[in-house]
Each structure stands twice: as C-alpha cells, then as structure tokens.
C-alpha cells in the first residue's frame, strides 16, 4: 500500500515531529546594555565587589592603556611589525582575563594582547607575533592562553573543542573566546556557536562590538537587533553589556563562566565598546569616522568610569591614581627596554617545528641554509678583518 492509498484518521494536529519549542524568551538579551558604573548613586556601583578586585581592575586598566600607547610607539620605532591597539576597550580585555580561573583557557584574537597580559603573560612574549620574531611567543599550555589568532573567528571552534574535550575528561574547565563585531559574520562563528550549544560545551563567547571592522561600520556588518540576539538561533542565551564598564562586563562574564562551569552550557556576550585608536598603526581611521564620534566615546572612557566610581566610594584617592600610573609607567619602561633589544633569532629554527621529525627534504634545506649562513658569517668576518687591518 502506498501512502497515496492509505486511509488513516484525519488528524488536524501539528505535524507528528512537532513539539513545542523551548521558549526563546530567556535567551533574549537585555533590552539595554547592562551597566553598573554611574548608574545609581555615586559610588554605589562597586556594590559588594571585593575591594582588592576593584583595585586590580583599576591597576590593569591603567596599565593596559599605557601598554597600548607604548606598543604603538614601538611600531614607529620599527620594533613591532604592527600593533592593533585596544585603547578604549581595556575594560573588556581586563574583565575577560580576570573572569577565568587558572585552569580555564583564554582564546584571544589578534587584538587581545592586553587580555593575555592581564592573565599573566609576559608582556614581551605577548608581542612576539607582532614583533615578528616568531608566530607565538609562549607555550599556550603554560598559562592556558591559546595563540593570538589572526584568521578571524577561526579560534572559536578551537575553544569549543577544547572545552568539550575537558568536559569529556571530567574536568570543570571553561574556555572564553574573544572576537570582534566583524568576526561574527564569518562562517566559523556560526559553526562554533552551534557546536557549543549542541554539545552544551562550557564556553563563553565574548564579542567586543567596537563599531567597526577596520573601516566597515556595524550597520554594514549586520541587520540584527543586536549581536547578542544571535544567541537565540543557537539556543544560547545572549547578554548585552556596556563594554566600557568593567564591573558590568565582569558581572556578565562571571555569570556566564559559572553557568558554563556548572554544566549550563555556553553564553554569547556582546560588549558594546569603541576602538579609540585606528585599526592598527598602519590604518588611517580619518577616512571612515569622525572626530566627534571619537570624542563622544572619550567621554565614556572605561578608566574614567571606574576611577570616578572608586573615588566616590572612597576606594581610590589621588595617591592610588598616582601609584597605578607609576606602575603602568614601569611596565612601559620595562617593555620599551626589553623590546629595544634585538630578539635572539636562529634561522635554523625554521626547520625544527614543521613536523615532529624533520623530513629528509627539510634536512636538505636546513643543510643548505646552514651552509649559506656559514658562508655569510665567513665573509662578514673577512670584511671585518679587512676593516681592522686598514
């Protein structure tokens, strides 16, 4: 009997596969970005937050800002190939780093040097990629910081896979992955969020919506109500937060991390912020945005927001401000000094880590380069000797 012939009861019911869907309401993001600083009575924003943590935030923000200006200066001195500054976005960077436990993993994008440094990475090692002496300057397993990732959104599935693997192994490890507004358009963003939700992987996705992907404004990137609304399509809660309000970002991330750790699955967080500097030192931001826009955001500076609240709450005085700036200057000075030294370079490293064992082909090429280097050293020595002999 074919279906055509059948004579079942007439069932004016929804299709058999249909079950009422989970209610999307709890997944929908806040109507406005979550904010803490300056919302209530002056000083009230710090709430019950541990004063030590507040001071840590403040110190890291100030240090981070100074790190950015120092690194940008180093590009002008030819000491860095390029630097994508996160000035204006320090609250996200710092809050992301401090939301995690030691056993957790951070998956930064190329702009997130600060987050890596705030998590404890050596400030010089963090710059290896951008200085250009190697691709990654640190062992990712040591502080559980994945390599700063350049191909946009491609680190997101890594974070999901790692978090999933940890969960399968019974470890309560959370992965926090960072990405920009532009990066959310990539297919890898979609696939990563979908895998995370299906697997209920303990991941937190932090989108720093700084309004631009290089020159392309958000309106040309998406027509979504907000980037946080993208969570709904994966069955994942979306949260919207003022990315310049370090306490707000911290709260939202903290909740998301706890949720992930306790088996509640992934969260998508959109932090609304602004990139005050150009895309990188090589970019000319005047081509695509106005001074007015930048000025408006300077009014909403993450450091100023926190500083005022801490002062109002009596947790910071001029001396504290001064101390933080001093510490930042020290970091900058140390960075400058160390970056002014030429990094040790061994061209033979090029062949060492392509495979566990170099292939015969690589050994041949290594022999050739070794011979070239020896010849060059010889002739350099010869010409040096020549100099002295004169």
């Amino acid at each position: 009997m074919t279906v055509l012939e059948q004579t079942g009861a007439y069932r004016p019911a929804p299709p058999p596969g249909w079950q009422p869907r989970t209610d999307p309401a709890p997944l929908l993001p806040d109507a406005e970005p979550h904010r803490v600083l300056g919302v209530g009575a002056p000083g009230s924003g710090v709430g019950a937050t541990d004063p030590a943590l507040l001071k840590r935030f403040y110190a890291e923000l100030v240090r981070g800002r100074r790190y950015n200006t120092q690194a940008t200066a180093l590009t002008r001195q030819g000491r860095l190939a390029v630097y994508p500054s996160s000035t204006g976005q320090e609250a996200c960077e710092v809050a992301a780093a401090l939301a995690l436990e030691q056993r957790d993993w951070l998956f930064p994008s190329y702009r997130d040097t600060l987050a890596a440094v705030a998590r404890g990475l050596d400030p010089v090692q963090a710059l290896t990629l951008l200085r250009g002496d190697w691709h990654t300057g640190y062992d990712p397993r040591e502080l559980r910081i994945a390599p700063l990732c350049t191909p946009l959104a491609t680190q997101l599935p890594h974070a999901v896979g790692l978090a999933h693997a940890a969960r399968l192994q019974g470890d309560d490890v959370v992965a926090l992955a960072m990405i920009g507004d532009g990066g959310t358009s990539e297919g890898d963003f979609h696939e990563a969020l979908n895998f995370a939700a299906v697997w209920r992987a303990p991941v937190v996705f932090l989108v720093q919506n700084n309004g631009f992907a290089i020159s392309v404004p958000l309106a040309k990137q998406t027509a979504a109500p907000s980037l946080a609304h993208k969570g709904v399509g994966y069955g994942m809660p979306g949260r919207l937060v003022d990315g310049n309000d370090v306490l707000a970002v911290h709260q939202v991330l903290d909740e998301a991390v706890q949720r992930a750790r306790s088996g509640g699955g992934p969260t998508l967080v959109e932090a609304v912020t602004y990139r005050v500097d150009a895309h990188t030192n090589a970019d000319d931001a005047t081509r695509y945005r106005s001074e007015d826009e930048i000025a408006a955001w300077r009014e909403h500076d993450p450091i100023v927001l926190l500083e005022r609240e801490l002062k109002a709450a009596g947790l910071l005085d001029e001396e504290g401000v001064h101390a933080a700036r001093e510490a930042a200057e020290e970091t900058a000075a140390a960075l400058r000094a160390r970056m002014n030294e030429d990094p040790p370079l061994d061209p033979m490293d090029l062949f060492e880590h392509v495979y566990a064992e170099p292939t015969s082909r690589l050994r041949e090429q290594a022999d050739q380069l070794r011979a070239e280097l020896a010849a060059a050293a010889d002739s350099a020595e010869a010409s040096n000797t020549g100099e002295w002999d004169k």
Partner: protein
Amino acid sequence: MTTAPAALKPAAPARKPATMAQALGRALRDEMAADPSVHVLGEDVGTLGGVFRITDGLAAEFGDERCADTPLAEAGILGTAVGMAMYGLRPVVEMQFDAFAYPAFEQLVSHVARMRNRTRGAMPLPLTVRVPYGGGIGGVEHHSDSSEAYYMATPGLHVVTPATVADAYGLLRAAIASDDPVVFLEPKRLYWSKAEWSPQDPEPVAPIGRAAVRRSGGSATLVTYGPSVPVCLEAAEAAREEGWDLEVIDLRSLVPFDEETVCASVRRTGRAVVVHEANGFAGPGGEIAARLSERCFHYLQAPVLRVTGLDIPYPPPMLEQHHLPGVDRVLDAVARLQWESEWTSGARTGEEAP
C-alpha cells in the same frame, strides 16, 4: 564441559578475505581500544557507521561521545577537533567525501598544518583527517575529487594513502598514533577490494614515509599510489606480452615522500611513468616527475611521463572512464619511453623531440 576448540591454544589465526573498508574500521577500533584519547567525529559516523560504514560499531562499543555524530559543518568539525587536540585528545575526523572537505580548508591550512610550528613545538596536533577520495565509483558531481595536490602543497601536513588491505590497517593506525597531523586519503574505489588478512595477526607495515615496491622489474618504473596501484599492476602484467618488465612502486605516503626508494628504482630502470587519478596540471605527478628528472637526470633514457586524470573538472559518472588513467593509457605511455636507443642517444645532440 565439552572440549570446545576455543579452549585449545589457537593456531595462528585464520587469514580470511577482508575488505579495505573492514581493515580501516578495525584500525579505528584497535586504536580506540588501545588509547582512550582517540576520539572519532564527523557526519553520520555514529549511529549510521558512516556512509561507507567505516566507523560501523564504534559508537556501540565506545559510546557516542568517543564516536560522535556532529552537526553538519566541516570547518566546525575540524576546528573543534583542533581544540580537542589542544586539550590532549587524539581526534580522528571523517570528511564524508573529498569535495566536502573544502569547507574545512582554512582550518586545515591555517591551523592544523601550522599549530606545531606556530608554537615552536609546544602544541603539536595529533590529529587525523580521513578523506575518502577519488573516482571510479559512479559518484555524481563532487563525490569523486582527487584533492591530494592541495594537501601536498601545504607544509606541516603528512599525506598518506593506502592501496592494500594490510596498508589500510597499518597506515591508519600509524596515522592516528602520529604526533603530526595526517591527511589520510582513502581510495573509495578500493574500499571493497579484498585480501587475505587477519586483524589478530596483521602484517607489520613500514612507518609512514616509506614507499613499497609492489612488483619488481627492470624495464621501467611505474610510480603510483592509492586507486591507481591496481591499474599499474594490471598494466605491468599486460606489458609482459610486449616484452617489458615493469617495476611498480606504491608511494603510500605522498608527504613525506620516499625519494630514496623511487630514485633507486628509476636509476636502475632508466625510465619512469607517474600514474595518478588527480588532474595532471600542477598535480602530484608534477612534483614527482620534476624530482625524478632532477635527481635521476643522468640515468634517464627517456623523459619521465605522466598518465593522469585529464585537466578538467571531474566528469559525470557516465564519462568518468575517459578521465581515469587506465591500463591502455599506462601502456601507451610506456611505449613512448623512447625504446629505440639509437635515436635516443643521438637526440642529446639536439634534434627536435617527437
């Protein structure tokens, strides 16, 4: 109660006919049993056992987290596998067909191939990407690509492809056990090829990177791999009638490339034909022929010839036989290896080549 035969110390286990597909499945099973960090993931690899049934039974034996059906997204599959490997697992990814590995190309080229190098060896990725490849199975568009040229051109990957049942087992186990990422190309049309083989007593297989001389001969060398190995063996048999005694080399591993074995053969025979299904232009045979021409220059009695797929998008099934290198084309190429040595030795002086 009864003296069951099972109670007796068993003799060497019977070697029964097994297909390459079975041997591959067994290799996965044995690696998963041996190493709890081995995880299989891909589309339909769980309940269904894969569209070629290579993973059949793994989910039942090891659970659906060790052999996991994923959402349908190849970049996501490979990308999450990278993350799993970063945490210390040994993922084995199945791409359903050659052409459906392309969405994962960026993950493969920009991450899988580079993570070890990027981190100065701190973060190797012991990850295997299984890709059923090649044609000859009557597959419709996008189901018969030979994509090995893309992988060979990507430093940081190993590229391995078996042609026999024993190699399928041995090389897949070696690939999974390798601390380097391996693109493991499975010749679809050999999935159902058979050989006497026993999982209890598998033949030892040389480590990745070693070619196998499948047939010895002195007249000329056929250099080939994967789906074209049986074609070359058949051509070598047929060539006996013409008085040619052909050597057939199965590369098994395209990266690393076993230059030693291949050059030794070609230096001895003085003539070579490279045979593969992939398109000719800028295909695997380009590298092989260039390398042989360079390294065996003074031994070559004739130019190294290539018999390959045509330089066209993979054809529809009803026309694929015209695309695939068959016995006749191999023999034709062998015939063009300038056997009239008078002419050959004179030629060096500069006459027009034929």
